[in-house]
C-alpha cells in the first residue's frame, strides 16, 4: 500500500492529549489536501480520533477547529490554488472556511476503541506507561488488519520492547513528536529491531510531507531527546539538594533556573521546562529509563516529594503553564515552591536583589535567547558571551560553566552509549526539539 492509500483511513489513539491532538491537526490537513485532488473526489477519507472521555473529545473538537483555522489562514496562498476551479469561492475568508469545513468533515471523534479496525495507519499517543501501552498495542493488533502500520509517539520506552510484548512483528516504529507538534519541527524516529523497511519508508515520507526534521535515534530508553533532558534535569535537581542548606529549597530552585536560562542562553530555565513538561511526566520518564537501563541513579527524592504533594506543573488547554516548581502568571514565573515549608514564596525585589548579589555581583546584562534566535551572527555572539562568562570568575558564572560542562558530558555519553550515531544528531534534537540556539556538543567550553 502506498502512503496515499494509507492516508484514506487513519486513527489516532489518545487523540485528545497534548501530543495526539497536535498530530491530529497535522495529519488531517494532509488527508484533506489529498481528498481535494480531482482524482480523489469520490473517495472516502476518515481520520478517527479516539480518546477515553467525551469531555476530552469536546475539548479536542474545539482545539481542532481553532488549529485548522490558524493553519488555513497561514496557507491561503496554496489554498487559493487548490480551489481555483471553485467559482463560488472568491474571497480568502470563503476559501479558508471551506477548507476548515472540509477537513473537519473527515474527522470522527469517538470513545469507541473498535472504530480503529479499518485504519491503515495508526498513531499511538497515549500516556507514557509501558503496561498500558503494551495492553493497548495488543488490543490494536487484534482489532486491526494484518497490514496496518503503527507509529508510536513513545518518548522513552524502547520500541523493540513494545514490539516484542505486543507481538507486532515489526509493524511499529517510534515516531516521537515534540510539544506542541504543530509548531515543533523535530520528530525523533526510532526503529525497533524488527521494524519493516516499508514502515521505515512510510515514516520518512510522512515526515517529508509534514515538513518535519526527522532525526534518527537508536532504540535505547530515553532516546536522544529525553536521554539528554532527563539527565540535564536530574543534574539541576541534585544541585538543588546541594544548595538548599545555604539558600533553602526555593532559593536553590530559583538560582538553578536563572543560571540555566540567562547564563546558558536557553529559551527557558531548567525548572520552568520541567514544569512545562509536567513533573509527573518527568517522573515517569526517569522511572522508565531507570528500569530499562538498570541505572538506579536516575531518580530524585526531591522530585518525588514534589509529585507526592500534587505539585505537578503541566499546561492548561490554552497552553498556559500550570504551577510547578515555579508559580506562573501569564507564563512568567512569579514565585517558587519550598517543599519543606509546603508553600510558594512569591518573588520580591529585595529577595531577588540578594540572590543577584550572589550569582551576578557585577550585574552583567546577558544577551537574551530571544534576541539571538534569528541573529545571523549568533555563534560569534555566543562565543563572546561564554568567553565573558569564563572571565567573570563569580560563583554564578562557575555554576553556569559547570552546568555547561555537564550538559556536554551528558551528550557525549549518548554517543558512547550508542543512543545517537553522531554529535550532529544530538545537537539537532536539542536545537529543534528544545529550541536551543546552540547544541550541547560545542566549543564554548
Amino acid at each position, binding site marked *: 500500500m502506498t502512503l496515499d492509500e494509507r492516508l484514506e483511513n487513519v486513527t489516532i489513539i489518545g487523540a485528545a492529549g497534548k501530543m495526539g491532538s497536535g498530530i491530529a491537526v497535522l495529519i488531517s490537513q494532509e488527508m484533506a489536501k489529498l481528498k481535494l485532488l480531482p482524482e480523489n473526489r469520490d473517495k472516502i477519507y476518515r481520520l478517527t480520533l479516539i480518546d477515553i472521555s467525551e469531555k476530552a473529545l469536546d475539548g479536542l473538537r474545539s482545539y481542532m477547529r481553532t488549529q485548522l483555522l490558524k493553519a488555513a*489562514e*497561514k*496557507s*491561503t*496562498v*496554496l*489554498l*487559493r490554488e487548490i480551489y*481555483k476551479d471553485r*467559482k463560488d469561492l*472568491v*474571497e*480568502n*475568508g470563503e476559501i*479558508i472556511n471551506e477548507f476548515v469545513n472540509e477537513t473537519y468533515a473527515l474527522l470522527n471523534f469517538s470513545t469507541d476503541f473498535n472504530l480503529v479496525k479499518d485504519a491503515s495507519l495508526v498513531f499511538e499517543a497515549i500516556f507514557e506507561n509501558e503496561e498500558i501501552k503494551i495492553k493497548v498495542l495488543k488490543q490494536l493488533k487484534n482489532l486491526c488488519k494484518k497490514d496496518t502500520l503503527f507509529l508510536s509517539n513513545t518518548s522513552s520506552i524502547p520500541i523493540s520492547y513494545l514490539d516484542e510484548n505486543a507481538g507486532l512483528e515489526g509493524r511499529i516504529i517510534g515516531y516521537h513528536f515534540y510539544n506542541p507538534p504543530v509548531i515543533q519541527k523535530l520528530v525523533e524516529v526510532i526503529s525497533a529491531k524488527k521494524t519493516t523497511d516499508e514502515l521505515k519508508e512510510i515514516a520518512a515520507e510522512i515526515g517529508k510531507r509534514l515538513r518535519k526534521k526527522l532525526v534518527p535515534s537508536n532504540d535505547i530508553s530515553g532516546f536522544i531527546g529525553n536521554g539528554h533532558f532527563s539527565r540535564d534535569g536530574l543534574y539541576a535537581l541534585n544541585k538543588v539538594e546541594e544548595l538548599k542548606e545555604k539558600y533553602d529549597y526555593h532559593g536553590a530552585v530559583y538560582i538553578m533556573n536563572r543560571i540555566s536560562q540567562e547564563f546558558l542562553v536557553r529559551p527557558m530555565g531548567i525548572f520552568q521546562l520541567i514544569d512545562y513538561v509536567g513533573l509527573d511526566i518527568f517522573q515517569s520518564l526517569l522511572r522508565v529509563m531507570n528500569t530499562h537501563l538498570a541505572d538506579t541513579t536516575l531518580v530524585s527524592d526531591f522530585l518525588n516529594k514534589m509529585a507526592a504533594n500534587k505539585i505537578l506543573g503541566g499546561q492548561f488547554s490554552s497552553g498556559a503553564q500550570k504551577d510547578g516548581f515555579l508559580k506562573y502568571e501569564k507564563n512568567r514565573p512569579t514565585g517558587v515552591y519550598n517543599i519543606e515549608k509546603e508553600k510558594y514564596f512569591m518573588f520580591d525585589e529585595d529577595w531577588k536583589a540578594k540572590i543577584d548579589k550572589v550569582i551576578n555581583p557585577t550585574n552583567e546584562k546577558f544577551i537574551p535567547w530571544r534576541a539571538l534566535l534569528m541573529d545571523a551572527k549568533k555563534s560569534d555572539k555566543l562565543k563572546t558571551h561564554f568567553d565573558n562568562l569564563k572571565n567573570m570568575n563569580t560563583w554564578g558564572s562557575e555554576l553556569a560553566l559547570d552546568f555547561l560542562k555537564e550538559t556536554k558530558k551528558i551528550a557525549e555519553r549518548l554517543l558512547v552509549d550508542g543512543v545517537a550515531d553522531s554529535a550532529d544528531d544530538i545537537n539537532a534534537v536539542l536545537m529543534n526539539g528544545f529550541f536551543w540556539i546552540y547544541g550541547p556538543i560545542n566549543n564554548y567550553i
Partner: protein
Amino acid sequence: MSYFRKKIYATAGFNTVFLGTGRKEFHPKKPRPGIEHYIKEAGLGAIDQIQNPENIDEGVIGNFMASRFCNQGNLGGFFPMVHPTFQYKPCTRTEGACDSGGLALTTSIKTILADLADVVLCLGVEVQNSVKAIYGADFLAGAGWFSGERKDGHAYFFPDQFSQRAGACYKKFGKEKIRKGMAQWYVNAIENARKNPKAQEFHNRNSDLFGTGMTPPNTKAFCEHINVFDCSKVSDGASAIIFASEEGLKKIGVDKKDAIEVISYAQVQDNLTTPPPDKTKLSTCAVAARRAYERAEIKPKNLSLLDVHDCFTIAGLLAVEAAGFADYGEGADFVSDGNTKSEGIIPTNTTGGLIGYGHPTGATGVRQAVDVVHQLSDKAGNCQVKIHSDKPFGMLSSMGGNDKTVVNMIFRKN
C-alpha cells in the same frame, strides 16, 4: 491666471498616532480605540488650533472600508459627535479606495469654490487592525475590480498587483538596480519615521535597514517579487485639516500667515475594469501630476518637497517618475543616489510615508496634506526640511487602487 476662482487655504492640520505592528503600545489581542475615537481625536486636534469652531460650515470624511473593517457605515453621523456646534450641519463621506482621503480634500475645496461653505473640516480615517491581515487583504481587494479580478487574484491581492509591477520593472530595467532602489526606499521611509513620534515605525531600531529591505521574497506565504518590508503598514489612524476661503479664515480667527494656500489640484479617474496599460509606469499618477503642475503654472523644479503614495516600495519609485523627477526607468537610480532623502534634491515622504508613518487607507490623503502644510509652515518638528525661497511649493500625490483614482495637490508657502 489662478486656477481657482478664489483663494483656498489649508490650516490647523492634525494627525493621530498611526497604530499597528511596530508601535510599542500595539498588541493585536488587546482592545484598541475604535473608529469614532480616531474621528474625534483628529477633529478636536484640528479645531483646537482655531478660534471659532462654530463657524465651520461642513464636514467631509474620507474613508475606504469601515463597512467591512468595522461594520460601520454612515460615517457622516460621527461629525456632530466631534463638536456640539456641528449638529445639523452637512457632512459627506468620500470613497475612492486608498485615495478616499484625497477625495475628501478635493470635495472640501469644491464646496468652498461653489460658495456653499467658507470653512470645511476635512477628515480621513481608517481602522484596519480589527481583522487579521489575510482577511484585511479581502477587504482591501475591494479597491480592484471584484467581479473581474478577484477570483484569479492572489491571496494578498494588492501586494501581488504591485509585485507584478516590480517583476515587470526587474525584467525591463534589470533586477539588481530596481531591487536596490526599493530597499533604499525602505531605508529612507524608516529613517524619516524615526524622526516622527506618531509614526508606526518610530520605534524601529534595526541597524541594518538596507539588508532587511533586500530580504528575498517568500513566494509560498507571500508574493513573488516583493517582501513584507516592501509593503505599507496595516494601520489605525485619522487625520484632519481645515480648508477655508479668505473670508472663512477670518471667521475662524486664523491669521493668513498661519495658513498655506492651495494653488491647484488634479483629480483623475481611470477605468477600473481595464488593466494598467503598462506595469512599469503609474500612468494615471503621471496625468494627475502634469495637470496639477500646469494648473499651478509651475515645474517639478519649483517644489521643495513631495509626498507620494508609496503603498509599496515599487510604487514609490514609479511615483517619483510620475511626478517628473526621474525619467522613465530611472526612479530606482534617482532614489539610490539619495535624491529623495530629507537633505536631497527633492525631500520625499519626509514623515515616513505609507511604509514608515503607516497607511490607514482612508486617512492617508488627508495625512499627506497635513504633512505638506506643516512643512511649508515650518511646523514639521524633527522632520522639518528646508523650504527654499525660490521653491516655495510642495505637492502631494494620493492614489487609490492600482493607479486608478488619483489626486495631486500643490500648496504654496506664504
